[in-house]
């Protein structure tokens, strides 16, 4: 598929893409690290929202600022900034999530010489009226702040157009997920990974065109007659920037049919309320969406959601991806595991850092887990 090739190309070299995009369009690029960054407002300001994933290994400069017990994601994105790799960014925004990202924001503000820096201190609890009111007010302040920093006016019309684009993009991504859930052999996990990653990096308009083409082709694809006999699994966790993991799961006899990742379903779940004021609609989506464990929306909401997802997607097991030193996810793990155990759903905990464990070891673990299902 030609469209997929183009997407894969972008994801292979995101910084190269960003620089080319900037040279071609003369648009600004705004970096972010988390699915709570209000991308729609950035896009409405005429800038490209660009999610930063960090590098694999080779961290020196960040060691001057962050201890070894800080997660590799935070350490590596700081390394990228300090080494100048990210100097194509016109600014970076820091929605409040965990304690480490919170300090990353301070350290970035004090040490990174290029681009503007903006904190978006969202509420941590999301299930009260006062939190909703605060969220809306913070997003309004952010909109005004971004107007100043990018020297633009963000009109309601521009915001609504941006939100329509995001709605379309997100619903197309959901369609892709639905197609895969029905026919997991129709597209590889690695391809889906590339598409979802492209959706937080690329020119969103262009991506929507490419993605619509991909979805159309997949829909037309006739079953090849081979019986699907791989095990259906769900991946749960935070950031998953490991294309290889999908292939390893597939080689071991499994298929990822859905996920609860902040670089997956959580980044495109939920529509905007079209009848609401645009900023209220942006806030509303965050408040209704399944949460990151650094946020609170009830005592069992994440486990309930995970169990429901497993049932709905007829998954046989769950692979829980845990980034070492990620406190919010690590504190949630026993409760998620217990909820799955109670439902008789087997799960596998996979601790990762900036790189995956050795391939041989991973393969053995996946094979043993999938065999059990």
């Amino acid at each position: 598929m030609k469209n997929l090739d183009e997407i894969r190309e972008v994801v292979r070299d995101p910084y190269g893409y960003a620089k080319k995009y900037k040279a071609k369009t003369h648009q600004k690029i705004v970096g972010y690290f988390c699915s709570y960054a209000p991308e729609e407002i950035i896009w409405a300001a005429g800038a490209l929202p660009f999610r930063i994933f960090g590098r694999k290994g080779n961290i020196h400069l960040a060691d001057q600022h962050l201890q070894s017990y800080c997660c590799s994601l935070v350490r590596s994105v700081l390394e990228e900034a300090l080494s100048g790799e990210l100097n194509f960014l016109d600014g970076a925004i820091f929605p409040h999530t965990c304690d480490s990202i919170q300090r990353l924001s301070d350290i970035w503000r004090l040490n990174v010489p290029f681009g503007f820096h903006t904190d978006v201190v969202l509420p941590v609890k999301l299930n009260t009226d006062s939190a909703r009111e605060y969220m809306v007010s913070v997003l309004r302040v952010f909109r005004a702040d971004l107007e100043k920093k990018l020297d633009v006016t963000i009109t309601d019309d521009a915001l609504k157009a941006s939100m329509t684009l995001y709605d379309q993009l997100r619903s197309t991504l959901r369609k892709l997920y639905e197609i895969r859930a029905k026919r997991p052999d129709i597209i590889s996990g690695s391809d889906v990974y590339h598409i979802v990653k492209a959706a937080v990096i690329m020119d969103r308009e262009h991506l929507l065109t490419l993605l619509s083409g991909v979805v159309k082709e997949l829909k037309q694809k006739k079953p090849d007659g081979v019986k699907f006999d791989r095990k259906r699994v769900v991946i749960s966790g935070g950031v998953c920037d490991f294309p290889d993991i999908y292939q390893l799961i597939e080689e071991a006899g499994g298929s990822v049919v859905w996920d609860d990742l902040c670089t997956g379903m959580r980044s495109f779940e939920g529509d905007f309320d079209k009848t609401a004021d645009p900023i209220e609609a942006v806030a509303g989506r965050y408040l209704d969406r399944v949460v990151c464990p650094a946020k609170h929306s009830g005592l069992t909401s994440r486990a309930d959601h995970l169990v429901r997802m497993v049932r709905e997607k007829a998954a046989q097991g769950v692979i829980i991806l845990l980034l070492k030193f990620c406190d919010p996810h690590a504190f949630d793990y026993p409760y998620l595991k217990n909820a799955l155990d109670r439902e008789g759903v087997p799960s596998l905990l996979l601790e990762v850092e900036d790189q995956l464990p050795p391939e041989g070891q991973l393969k053995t673990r996946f094979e043993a887990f999938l065999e059990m299902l």
Partner: protein
Amino acid sequence: MAEEMKVLDPEKEKRKIQSAKKMKEIMTAYYIEAKTAGETGKKVAWITSGGPVEPLIVMDVIPVYPENHGAMIGASRMGAALYEKAEAMGYASDLCSYACSDIACAPINGGPIGGLPRPDMLICCNNICGTVLKWYEIQARYFNVPLFILDTPFCHTEYTEEMRKYVRRQIDEYLRFLEEHCGKKYDYDRMKEVGKLSVTGQKLWQAVLDTTMHKPAPMSAFDAFFHLALIVTLRGTQQAVDYYEMLLAEMKQRITDDIGAIPNERYRLLWDNLPVWYRTKWLSEKFAAQDACLVADTYTSAWCGSLKYVDENNFLETMAECYTRIYLNIGVDEMARTVTAMVDKYDVDGIVMHSNRSCKPYSLGQYDIQRIVEKQKGIPSLMLEADMTDERKFSESQIETRIDAFIEILQEKKRKT
């Protein structure tokens, strides 16, 4: 019998803080009351160390502090064993050791006091970290009790009007939560008294800490770690006020009598981060042997650091800001300014920073604070990597070597001046 036969060292006896005995009595009585709440019919609320306890006092609810429990677990050297139990429950080995040891205590009534009394409700204020949110969610599920979250937005560079409104609204929600779960109306008149007592207690605690501006310092940070317990657990009560008045008088007397915390104070140091609970004695002796006294710290002063935002005659309206702008809920640069001001105030020669694997909001950013303060004040600093409660993360030989090297730097500097 062995006790009676022991010959007391008069030099050591002279330096012992007499109020400590009273403090132990108060804390013992407090824990007995809390542990027997089931018999007296009083309600028990677990609350985070930086949380607004005053409304609980108003409602006659006994506040219990899992973090104080964590400190006791650490001081009793039960941290590692309890953390291992938490690991067996599925918790990763590099999380907050307070949280993990407390979580492990609950199902087995473990730890130095046989577990904390069962809570009727949980009050979690995230002004100190995001970990307390996860910790209290876990305990709310375990005990199946209501949880109130006071969400205090992080003040990277400012305390905004939006934040003020949000936290103020939540204070009302907090009072409604208490009314619902205590089955009685909130007493606003009593709030005024408790608010005043809270502010008076905090001011007294600050005055106690300020006595170490004197040379030699009549007490050290290690003493402060101990005497801190009441401003955390009984803030807003007459008992805390009385105690700190007594302690302050004793410190003033020591100044008059020229009694220092250590026999020969040559180097005055500032401690940053939580104590290493299972090694406070070892560390205090280690530094004292080199004539170094830790005269102040950023940790114990956090319980009076935001006094500037509170109006004791209007506690209810001003507590939102007071609780939101505490030391750990502010940006790294503002923390560095606080440290710099303390370096001047207490006239310290160097800084000892505990890089605490358990506490990311306190520790991440320390390297930057270290550089800013070193540059501005021209004083050396020492970074010790350890953990507040988990003794497995403490390497004695490594830390000893680093302390010795640091003292040499201080000696060298003193010789030159």
